[in-house]
């Protein structure tokens, strides 16, 4: 009897949470991109700073990585040349 009562309580709790769970579902995704027509919708959040920010992040990030890679490569090559010179001086 206690088990039946516990099951009923559990079902009631789950049932009461279901509408909230359904309401919390994200809206339907956009499954197609279409070009804007002649009457574009007014903007609520300005797009330009976000767009420019995104391009600065990508181009800046890639540039910074290329510079970092070139510097690391340059430093290691310098060490290789130094050690090769050292080995030559020792006659090996």
């Amino acid at each position, binding site marked *: 009897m206690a088990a039946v009562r516990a099951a009923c309580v559990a079902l009631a709790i789950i049932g009461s949470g279901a509408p909230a769970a359904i309401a919390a579902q994200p809206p*339907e995704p956009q*499954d197609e991109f279409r*070009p*804007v027509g002649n009457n574009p*919708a007014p903007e609520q959040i300005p797009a330009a700073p*976000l767009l420019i920010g995104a391009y600065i992040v990508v181009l800046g990030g890639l540039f910074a990585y290329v510079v970092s890679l070139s510097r690391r490569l340059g430093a*290691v090559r310098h060490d290789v040349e130094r*050690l090769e010179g050292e080995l030559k001086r020792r006659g090996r």
Partner: protein
Amino acid sequence: MPKWFNPAAILCGLMFVVSPVLIARAPDESSMGMVYKIYYYHMPSAWMFLLAPLVCGASSALFLARGRPEDDRRAWAAAELTVLFGALTLITGPLWARRAWGTWWVWDARLTSSLVGWMIGWAYLILRRYGGPGSDKLAAGVALFGAVNVPFIYISVNYWRTIHPPTTVVPRLPVEMGVPLWFCVFAFLLLFVLLMTMRLRLEETRTRLDGLYVALDE
């Protein structure tokens, strides 16, 4: 560097100079407006973010099977690119989402699995940096998890409910939007190959340096 490297680097640079012109000429999207144009760099970054862990995982599997150092070096280079392109994807995505969805982030399957994939890339690099002896094989095991996560990231938008656009938007793009996108994809792919080549050369030179230190000590 190989002979093709400099011409390919010039071509890649030119493609990145031309791409903003093509993107500026592309039309805005009907419901998102101008902010949709983040897509032209976000999507290619995301594809490279999926490609890098696959290269890392495949190279790590080969390293575990054959034990050749060149496979390990390729895996390490790809892990660094996983972190780089993952960062670009995970920053540009929220910038787009803020305007398109009204929020910076949602904990849906696509975004969460992408974040996990990026953290696996970091885990690989941290293991290699601080793991000590034997960390190469341990990191190779981590890389396998990173590669297995890639198909999950890709299909997540088609199987779980999310506000992230599904994979079907790409083949349905009209020509005026598709041409700049594919141009950017090829530019990013070329850049990926160039960065992999540079990063591999760095590891090869480091290996040579280690050999020279050993020869000097003897």
